[in-house]
């Protein structure tokens, strides 16, 4: 009962929170994808595959760092508000993207790359026509798991003033109103499911035919 009455009485606040939550997710993910893919390409350049392997181990281990720790560190060094929150979100979302993109690019069959080089494809043709398309399924699954984690992390970022659905959850905690916690968490979960569904569709679209 309280659950529905809160919805009715605070519909504006909930709508604003959803929009803000989604925007935080969108902006931080956009940065993370661009930066993450770029980094992965740089660290997997031909002749530098060792660097890629090292980064792979580091990012693999970093995935165990809890999001709260990253947010706390950003708070210590940059402060509070929307911008520090975005910084923390980008950093935290980068890890799975870099991990997957790097491992995807490094696991492209060396025979295929050798053939491509021997046939006279240039370095950038090998990257854009061979490596990236072949790594695409792995890159996309990195982006998907990063997106899901990101939406959850946005709620945590509310503690340093990011806003969004996290605010509703924290307020609920302080006022001891469980319905607010349920609403905040439930809506975040719904956003995560919707985003993942969309990304699953995108993944299918960008995965080249022939890669079963």
């Amino acid at each position: 009962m309280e659950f529905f009455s809160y919805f009715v009485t605070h519909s504006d606040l909930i709508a604003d929170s959803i929009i803000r939550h989604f925007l935080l997710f969108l902006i931080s993910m956009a940065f993370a994808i661009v930066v993450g893919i770029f980094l992965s390409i740089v660290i997997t350049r031909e002749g530098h595959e060792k660097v890629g392997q090292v980064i792979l181990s580091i990012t693999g281990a970093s995935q165990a760092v809890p999001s709260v720790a990253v947010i706390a560190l950003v708070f210590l060094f940059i402060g509070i508000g929307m911008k520090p929150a975005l910084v923390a979100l980008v950093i935290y979302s980068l890890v799975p993207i870099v991990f997957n993109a790097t491992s995807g690019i490094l696991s492209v069959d060396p025979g295929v790359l050798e053939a491509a080089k021997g046939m006279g494809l240039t370095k950038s043709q090998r990257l854009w026509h061979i490596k990236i398309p072949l790594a695409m399924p792995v890159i996309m699954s990195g982006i998907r798991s990063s997106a899901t984690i990101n939406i959850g992390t946005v709620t945590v970022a509310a503690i340093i003033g990011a806003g969004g659905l996290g605010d509703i959850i924290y307020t609920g905690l302080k006022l001891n109103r469980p319905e607010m916690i349920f609403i905040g968490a439930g809506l975040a979960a719904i956003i995560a499911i919707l985003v993942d569904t969309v990304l699953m569709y995108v993944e299918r679209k960008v995965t080249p035919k022939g890669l079963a």
Partner: protein
Amino acid sequence: MIEYRNITKRFGEKIAVNNLNMTLEKGTITMLIGPSGCGKTTSLKMVNRLVDPDEGDILINGESVFDLDPVKLRRSIGYVIQEIGLFPHYSVFDNIATLPRLHNWDEKKIKDRVYEVLDMVTLDESYADKYPSQLSGGERQRVGLARALAADPEVLLMDEPFGAIDPINRLILQQSFLEIQEEIKKTIIFVTHDINEAIQLGDKIAIMNQGSLVQFDTVSEILANPENEFVENLLGHDRNLKALSLKKARDYIKKEGYITVGPDVDKEAIRKELEEKDLVLAYIIDSRGRLKGRYYIDKAARKVDGRYPLVRETRPYHVERTTSLTETLSRMLEYGEKVLPVVSRNGRFRGVIDLDSIFEEVKQAGTAKGA
């Protein structure tokens, strides 16, 4: 023509290729063979500059490959590696069209050429839309060859292209590869670790060991006169037998030891003629000279009325003029015949080949080695 001049390549302390000098004639297949790490693949990859030597020069038609831009050079050379080299996310069509597209051919010309090379490797047009994962190993290898031929390069580099194929399909691929080469006459360098493949396909064989060229000569010369023990061991104990695979039945045809008869000749007359000449074999030849069957006096059977029976067979075993002596020998063993008729491709009777001629040939090869 490809010339290796004083080529040396080191990987750290190890000398991978040691002062290699070798000239490969235009339109021939040169087989590079030797144990793992002998430098054969390294030598191959220097031609399209996947590996650069520390010393020396490589010339294609008199022009040094080191004066050319590596990317341009590679686009002018066909390159085939084991089946894994196909791009899995490209259809067969797109795989083959890769180089023509890099050369900016127009789409119409690309399409015509893709179907042309597919036909050359005996794959029909329905393969164009398939992906590599939908093909068998042999089909993938054919597509690999088609892709290398697409831009009509003069030189083909092949790095153990049939290595991952099962023995039966490998034989088929080797045979059709030879037929394709008959047509296209490319200058081919072919790395293999299979001596039988080298003998089967090569015009010349270059044998390498520990970075050095041990022997470089025609296949028959290497089989007859191995340079040293290393080459002998590589060729195996049965090298005299292997040499037989290079020889064709047509050069050992005998025109004696049998009689020929028309299809309608009376049995008694045949027996009479055979007994008079002290022979046992009569081949039945039709009016156009084609082999139709044979009569033979079966001396292993029991006598009837004091005479051995005269048996008629309408489909006698035979070999063709181009059948190798190895194949001839194995058919003799299989059929239990010491004499087989030889026919031309259109079935005309040309004479017979007997076991003694093959023994004689093996014996001669054996003595040539000692000489």
